[in-house]
């Protein structure tokens, strides 16, 4: 009898925070203006991107400094489909994810042969080369070259009393929720466990028959898909994309968000996204010219004093509930 009550209490303590947050976010448009909603949407966009990178780094043990490239692919696919082929946004989003997935697989294949510093180098180069690839004159008819493409914001369906900003916010909320659940399931599924095994001890995993290559490549593809969807959402929110929106700084931000949130901890993605979006503004407030330096300094300080990022605090609450008799 007491054990049932206890487990109910524990369960409710665990669920309280997430349910509360979800309810609060659903209510946000009622009290917030367009700009705040835009910021909130951006936070979610980054959270999805960071979730994707987390799947790659935290759960399959690979590294990537170039995920901005997949973000860009998703953004461009969505923009082109919606702009040039009149594809509705609710098709363009998953399409962006699929295309990014394919590119992720393609990059994941050679990445199999690379480890540690080499993989870092290769993905770093990918990040730096991305804007230039996007500016290729061969592709300009599609991509619009340097000037970029304008993207139309999805419109709320007729009958619903929502502004476009609010509608997009809800779309982002749904997508983010779906991606989060997908990530959770992937991680605790058999494939997820296999990926963790790969990360912890590749030799042992191989010996037990886990097909390394398949899992690592799939991990790359999946994480790319997440970033592609994030990119598509971002394109719709900002309503404009150009090659210079996707510099190394983007890939660096996703990585920073991952580190701040805590590698291997899914909810950390939200903390990471908040950090990445708010701290640069903060830094600029502190010192306009030195904002990059302040950002860099905060990042370094975090690595030193809080290397597990926000995830350092997660076990604290678990411990508290466990200790109660």
């Amino acid at each position: 009898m007491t054990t049932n009550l206890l487990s109910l209490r524990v369960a409710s303590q665990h669920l309280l925070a997430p349910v509360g947050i979800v309810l609060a976010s659903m209510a946000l448009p009622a009290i917030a203006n367009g700009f705040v909603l835009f910021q909130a949407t951006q936070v979610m966009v980054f959270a999805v991107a960071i979730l994707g990178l987390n799947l790659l780094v935290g759960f399959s043990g690979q590294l990537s400094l170039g995920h901005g490239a997949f973000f860009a692919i998703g953004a461009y696919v969505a923009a082109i489909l919606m702009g040039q082929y009149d594809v509705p946004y609710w098709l363009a989003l998953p399409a962006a994810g699929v295309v990014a997935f394919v590119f992720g697989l393609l990059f994941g294949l050679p990445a199999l042969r690379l480890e540690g510093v080499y993989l870092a180098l290769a993905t770093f180069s990918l990040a730096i080369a991305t804007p230039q690839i996007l500016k290729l004159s061969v592709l300009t008819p599609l991509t619009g070259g340097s000037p970029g493409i304008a993207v139309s914001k999805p419109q709320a369906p007729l009958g619903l009393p929502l502004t476009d900003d609010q509608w997009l916010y809800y779309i982002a909320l749904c997508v983010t929720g779906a991606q989060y659940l997908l990530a959770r399931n992937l991680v605790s599924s058999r494939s997820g466990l296999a990926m963790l095994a790969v990360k912890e001890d590749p030799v042992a995993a191989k010996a037990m028959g886990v097909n390394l290559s398949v899992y690592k490549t799939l991990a790359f593809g999946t994480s790319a898909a997440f970033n592609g969807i994030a990119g598509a959402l971002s394109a719709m929110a900002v309503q404009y994309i150009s090659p210079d929106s996707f510099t190394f700084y983007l890939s660096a931000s996703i990585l920073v968000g991952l580190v701040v949130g805590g590698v291997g901890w899914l909810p950390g993605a939200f903390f990471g996204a908040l950090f990445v979006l708010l701290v640069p503004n903060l830094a600029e407030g502190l010192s306009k010219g030195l904002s990059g330096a302040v950002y860099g300094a905060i990042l370094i300080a975090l690595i030193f004093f809080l290397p597990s990022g926000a995830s350092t605090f997660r076990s604290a609450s678990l411990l508290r509930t466990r200790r109660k008799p």
Partner: protein
Amino acid sequence: MELFVQQLVAGLSTGTIYACIALAVVMIYQAIGHVNFAQGEMAMLSTFVAWQLMQLGVPYWLAFVLTVVLSFGMGLLIERTLMRRLRHAPPLSQVAVFIGLLLMLNSAAGYAWNFTVKPFPTPFGTGPFLGASWISQHQAGMLASTLAILAALVVFFRFTRVGLSMRGATSHPVSARLLGIRVQALEGLGWGLASAIGAVAGMLIAPIVFLEPNMMAGTLIYGFAGAVLGGLGSPAGAVLGGLLVGVLENMAGTFIPVIGGELKLTLALVTIVLVLVIRPQGLLGRKLVHRV
């Protein structure tokens, strides 16, 4: 044919730039076993310091020497304060710190000296070298300097005790300690040397690409490509790789129509990935043999 030779030589001269950076990258890699993504920014900062000294009236060669010494100190400082604490951190944390460093240096330089492009003097003169139209005196000087640094490094690693100790320390730090080698001190030395080489690279490149906080952004990638192509463990490979990348980039740009001037960075990317996948030890690196 004449076009071919012309482009070949032009490629070689841009290649010297890449060779110089590649050398600094390999130096750091030899010293600490990591690739330093902030290498370019460190070099850029050093070059600004040199420029500032000259603005204050310091003659070129004195400014050059002072800058090299100061850069050595900067590298040492970074190792002592930052990198030392990261020994046992996961690779992701180390990469994140490099990125933080990159951002800090770039922003600091922009703040101190703003983003306008500045000319940087060359000690070699700007006229054609020995009358030849395809190579300037500066380019010749650059090539000679790079080769000189390379020679010094080869001698250092092959024939000096400190160089050998450094190679041992990066190969297997625990074993090195058990032989009484002060691994930590050597890392500091390695960072100092790499930073100094980067400073020289920056001062050699600046007359051509002009001095501004983002001057190293594009060139760094080519430097990496050169280092990887030549083999991350080999200084000679770095120079060879850098030169090759310069030639490749130029030749591809001239003779393959689609590429033109646009795909250069992509070419660097592709080079890096291909080399790392097909022959990770590069052209001159020693293949790592594992007997289980």
